[in-house]
């Protein structure tokens, strides 16, 4: 049984060169950004002499290659550098922001599943009928709406008008955190739902027409028991990888959505850092996001292996 999970350590090893590649891309992309951070910090009125001296202080006058080696050297020691804007270790800033963004993503995923699973089941139980058409129309509309627009509409409707939720921010206590994260999470969930619903609907229809569901019916299974024992897990199999891929995109979306809802997560950190040309912080956030995508990829395969006993990724990779 556990044998089938032997691909995990291998995959972790494989991700080391990937992460190395990511550092190269991140570092050089960031340094190709137009604008001098020293100027950004001092403002447009600063004298060239002061800009030059601050540049020297930040090590920005060294050759780019030297700067990269220095960055890499620090990274290996777990040192992400010091934020130019906040004059604090970047690792502190990132550690503060990561749990917020992760909670947001997790919340969004849960909401997306809570919305998608019943809708997909309803649609798949009567393909071509009114309720199926309604669900499909919903997915089309959902797909057509830009994420930030959905966010703004939710703010206008549920926060400004109905006053049911805060317009933005993160709140103080743990309970408040979830309350404040609801609208941004819902925004992200709405973006994810169409793909999940479409995939689940198709696979559920497939499973419902399968021979083994016929066998289950011949044993007298029906309704909830039939779904729970024979449909859910089988229909989830193709959807799991789709969700995995989508979580990657979702991080990108969450950066923007955090901004819309003023959630102090990685996205807000990143965007502020970009405007301030806060290179160490930009690099750190980009690395964390890359790491997240890699981990989600591995987790997806773990879930996939866990729900489908036929899957053995290790045998393919080791062969």
């Amino acid at each position, binding site marked *: 049984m556990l044998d089938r999970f032997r691909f995990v350590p291998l995959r972790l090893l494989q991700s080391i060169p990937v992460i190395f590649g990511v550092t190269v891309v991140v570092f050089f992309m960031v340094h190709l950004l137009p604008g001098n951070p020293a100027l950004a910090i001092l403002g447009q009125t600063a004298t060239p002499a002061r800009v030059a001296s601050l540049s020297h202080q930040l090590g920005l006058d060294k050759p780019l290659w030297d700067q990269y080696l220095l960055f890499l050297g620090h990274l290996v020691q777990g040192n992400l550098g010091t934020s130019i804007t906040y004059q604090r270790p970047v690792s502190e800033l990132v550690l503060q922001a990561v749990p917020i963004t992760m909670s947001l993503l997790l919340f969004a995923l849960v909401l997306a599943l809570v919305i998608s699973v019943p809708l997909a089941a309803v649609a798949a139980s009567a393909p071509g009928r009114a309720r199926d058409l309604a669900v499909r129309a919903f997915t089309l509309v959902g797909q057509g709406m830009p994420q930030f627009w959905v966010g703004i509409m939710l703010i206008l409707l549920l926060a400004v008008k109905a006053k049911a939720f805060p317009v933005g921010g993160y709140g103080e206590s743990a309970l408040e955190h979830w309350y404040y994260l609801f609208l941004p999470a819902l925004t992200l969930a709405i973006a994810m739902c169409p793909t999940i619903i479409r995939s689940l609907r198709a696979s559920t229809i497939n499973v419902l027409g399968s*021979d083994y569901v*016929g*066998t*289950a019916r*011949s*044993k*007298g299974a029906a309704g909830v028991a039939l779904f729970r*024992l*024979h449909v859910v897990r089988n229909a989830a199999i193709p959807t799991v990888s789709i969700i995995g891929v989508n979580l990657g995109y979702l991080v990108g979306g969450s950066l923007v959505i955090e901004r819309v809802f003023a959630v102090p997560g990685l996205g807000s950190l990143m965007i502020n850092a970009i405007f301030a040309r806060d290179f160490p912080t930009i690099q750190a956030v980009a690395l964390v996001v890359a790491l997240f995508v890699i981990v989600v990829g591995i987790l997806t395969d773990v879930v996939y292996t866990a729900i489908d006993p036929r899957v053995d990724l290790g045998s393919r990779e080791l062969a």
Partner: protein
Amino acid sequence: MSVEGGSAPLSVQDLTIGLRRPGGRSVAIVEDVSFDVDPGQRLGIVGESGSGKSLTLRAVAGLLPRGVEVLSGRVEFGGRDLLTMPAKDRRALMGPEIAMIFQEPMTALNPVMRVGDQIAEGPRRHLGLSAKEARELAVSMMARTGIPDPARRAKAYPHELSGGLRQRIMIAMAVSCGPRLLLCDEPTTALDVTVQLQVLKLLEKLCDDTGASLVFVTHDLAVVNQTCSELAVMYAGHIVEAGGVKDTFRQPRHPYTRALLESAPDFDHPERELIPIPGFAPNVADRPSGCPFAPRCGYVRDHCTEAVPPLEEVIPGRLAACFESDRLVEVLA
């Protein structure tokens, strides 16, 4: 197969199955099929691909594919019409009274559920057993179907077992609640010949032990000859001949049955030449007027294409739907 109903556990009367089209017009795929199965009796249904064997069986089990419906007729089990009883009552019969075994053991088992649990599911639901009792019953059922090391195999997933073992799992599942009627849709077609024989013997033994009736769909005449006592031959959605297996094989009274026998290899007389049936079975949508077999029939006369020959008793214990039935005997003699 008794011609009149009554005490039969299964009595199918004028069953018509087809597609209901929007606008009231419907297309019949299986038409006016009637047969009875008495307690302990074994009926084989044969016919070439597409003749409606599987649909007939699935209609009895209430497992018609989406879009296909029973258009008319009755399916009585123990005196109650399965087609009009509430869905819940009917489901309660599936397992303890009626069980079905499908053709493809590859796809008929849930790939993500342990086989032991799949066998235990029915007994848990219908016999009110605890999870542990049901699991024990599953293992003993597996032992009964000749699966070696059943306790370990119960924990296996279907893909870890061979085709023969999977079909034994299907059989163990079907008999786990002690049904009175076993419906088999080509249960051995996907297996290689040696395994086929073992599985057939097993089915026979289980039916002998429990006194269950059997309806066995196949296109393999040798299998019917070995397993069944009664025979129904289907062609283009109709039963064209019905009677005792041995009798019918010795002296078929419908040209299609005769053609089927001549086109199948006979291991007792390997020197006999095989004669393929010319042409193709008609499409259900444009069935010819008159006898559906007429275009391919060697005995055809003018009147055959004018009216559909009714299924009638031609000799005691034998039904055939052919105007020229008597001529078959003369020609044979």
